[in-house]
């Protein structure tokens, strides 16, 4: 159900929509251009140990695995940004309390949770991969170590819970509409 025109809501939503589109374009461009860099160092540290190599020095199958790991870990973020852009577009049009927007909040939440999980596992996964293909021996010890990306997990959970609350609100609204 469209809400009456609200200048502030429309303005902020337009800003959100524009920013989300810009973020999306920058992320996709960054990911795409990354692999065309002539020098692309990969540096892993553990205490005093520093191990560095260049992406282009790796065998082809390791390059593909690295691309898959980095791109895969970014996909939830790109998905979340697309959902945020769609949310901004709908809010701009005054379409606020809808089933679609409720689901979008939950999707953004799940995507941020996935981003937190993938982000936590990315460095150990790269360490394990490089160790398996000739990295330093200490990388084997680094593989099980990961930093929990709790910020993303919390933000994701918050979005998901807000989505659930909106869904409950919509159910109450529908119930009220059909109370004669």
């Amino acid at each position, binding site marked *: 159900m469209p809400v009456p025109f609200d200048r502030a809501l429309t303005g902020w939503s337009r800003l959100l929509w524009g920013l989300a589109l810009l973020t999306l374009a920058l992320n996709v461009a960054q990911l795409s251009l990354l692999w065309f860099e002539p020098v692309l160092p990969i540096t892993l540290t553990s205490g005093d140990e520093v191990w560095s190599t260049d992406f282009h020095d790796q065998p082809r199958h390791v390059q593909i695995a690295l691309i898959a790991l980095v791109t895969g870990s970014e996909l939830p973020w790109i998905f979340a940004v697309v959902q945020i852009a769609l949310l901004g577009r709908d809010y701009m049009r005054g379409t606020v309390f809808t089933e679609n927007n409720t689901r979008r909040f939950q999707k953004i939440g799940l995507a941020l949770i996935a981003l937190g999980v993938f982000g936590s596992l990315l460095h150990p996964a790269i360490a394990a991969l490089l160790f398996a293909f000739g990295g330093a021996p200490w990388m084997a010890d680094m593989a099980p170590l990961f930093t929990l990306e709790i910020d993303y997990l919390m933000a994701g959970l918050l979005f998901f819970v807000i989505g659930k609350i909106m869904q409950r609100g919509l159910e109450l609204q*529908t*119930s009220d509409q*059909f*109370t*004669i």
Partner: protein
Amino acid sequence: MGIVVNLDVMLARRKMRLNELSERVGISLPNLSILKTGKARAIRFSTLEAICRELDCQPGDILEFVDDHGAG
């Protein structure tokens, strides 16, 4: 089916049209139509009271419980 609304039956017995009832009880025709077709999720006591007054009937004449999960 759960709760069945027999508003159409009562209207037929009283030989009254839905739009006439709508004017008498002050409830919009679309809302009464929702009630008549069984799409309503709830009914306010004030609405039930107004309908019963105009149709000169009891709430049980309008609302009926049908047990779908009954024995047999």
